[in-house]
């Protein structure tokens, strides 16, 4: 890594082909020292996943764009706080997106944040299979969705409402007309089952 760090510089160009060979974690180190080119690669590698999550949560293109932009700028400005021992850069990025999207959802009215996708499917990746990495990620996504679908419906629902919808347990309890204790129990049980069915996949993805 010292070789990568020695190339730290401030730049707006991504023309440094050497950067492309660096792992995310090394790019984050360069980025935290003000290297815009290194940050651009981080952006390019993770922006679709980030935007997908933001869009899934917010359901509107404009809000999803704002959330994604806020998240990446927060990443750029707080790169020094990234700790590789706590997970991959991708997980870190998606964590920031999730927090920002929750903020956006909670700023908006509950009724505005249903997941009605108001812009159709034209942006979807249906015909897009650019690289092996992309293909692998699509497989991962399919695996996680399948694992979610395997959960009992009431557990899947509370997890999705909480994670993607940004609802608190008391809001979910009200929505589903169930006691808060029941909602908490479903969340924990559902996550434990999900963890079990994903098996070792998580380590492979990280």
């Amino acid at each position, binding site marked *: 890594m010292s070789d990568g760090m020695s190339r730290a510089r*401030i*730049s*707006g160009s991504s023309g440094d082909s050497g950067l492309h060979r660096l792992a995310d974690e090394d790019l984050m180190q360069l*980025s*935290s*020292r*003000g290297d*815009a080119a290194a*940050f*651009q690669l981080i*952006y390019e590698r993770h*922006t*679709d*996943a980030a*935007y*997908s*999550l933001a*869009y*899934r*949560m917010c359901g509107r*293109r404009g809000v999803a*764009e704002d959330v*994604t*932009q*806020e998240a990446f*700028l927060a990443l*750029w*400005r*707080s*790169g*020094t706080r990234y700790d590789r021992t706590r997970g991959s850069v991708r997980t870190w990025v*998606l*964590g920031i997106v*999730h*927090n920002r999207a*929750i903020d956006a959802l909670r700023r908006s009215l509950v009724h505005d944040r249903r997941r009605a996708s108001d812009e159709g499917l034209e*942006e*979807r*990746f249906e015909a897009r299979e650019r690289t092996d990495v992309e293909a692998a*990620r699509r497989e991962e*996504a399919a695996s*996680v969705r399948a694992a979610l679908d395997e959960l009992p419906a009431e557990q899947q629902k509370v*997890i999705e409402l*909480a*994670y993607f919808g*940004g*609802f*608190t*347990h008391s809001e979910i309890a009200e929505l589903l007309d169930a006691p808060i204790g029941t909602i*908490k*129990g479903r*969340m*924990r049980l*559902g*996550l*434990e089952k*999900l*963890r079990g069915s994903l098996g070792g*996949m998580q380590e492979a*993805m990280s």
Partner: protein
Amino acid sequence: MSGEAFTRAHDETAEALGAYVLGALPDDEAARVQAHLGECERCQEDLAALRLAVDALPRAAPPVQAPPALKERVMSVVRAEAELLQAAGEGADRAPAPPPRRRGLGALLARPAFAAAAAAGLAIAAIVGFVIGGGADNGGSTRTVQARVLSVAGAGPTTSAALRVQDHRATLMVRDMPEPPARKVYEVWVKHGAGAPVPAGTTFVVRSGDIPIAHTVKPGDQVLVTAEPGGGSPAPTSPPMIVARPA
């Protein structure tokens, strides 16, 4: 904590851990869970296992392609800030102290003012510098450049700054700046090449107006504005809010 209190906190945490890791707890309940986690290894292990499941959830989002224009929106800000950091140089925020080791975002982020500003998600208006006027005026060359306005708390959509330079005399024109922070003034600096910013001998508190800069400004210099304690500082103590580079 008594054994009974610990057991009660443990039971509460065990029940709430799924909601906690999903971010679905209200603040007071989340704080209680956090407090218990600090003293219960078993709950920490349970949390780590649940977190693995939660970390996988974003991958269940149907893949959607990010709009290509978003990249330029993000990167234009990033490039402007990278340049700003370079412009701020090693001397920024370093009063008469040991020599700086390296420049960069890491150094700036370590500064409380910048970190606080970033954490607060302050308005960032990155206006790419460009010449908006110029030409001959009484035989002298007058150039006006739009300035970058960055990290100004309370900045609105109409906040802007520009620099007019004639014969090395510069005037900073600000519009709709927010009030300076409490007990602070805006101070102007001139930075020549890679040198540290030097006080321009000019401070201001007006929100809109034309501010003559006492220091000469030559081509290649940069004019910076920071918030400083009343009376000004010998060296910047906060990150630049405005950067202008005369053409």
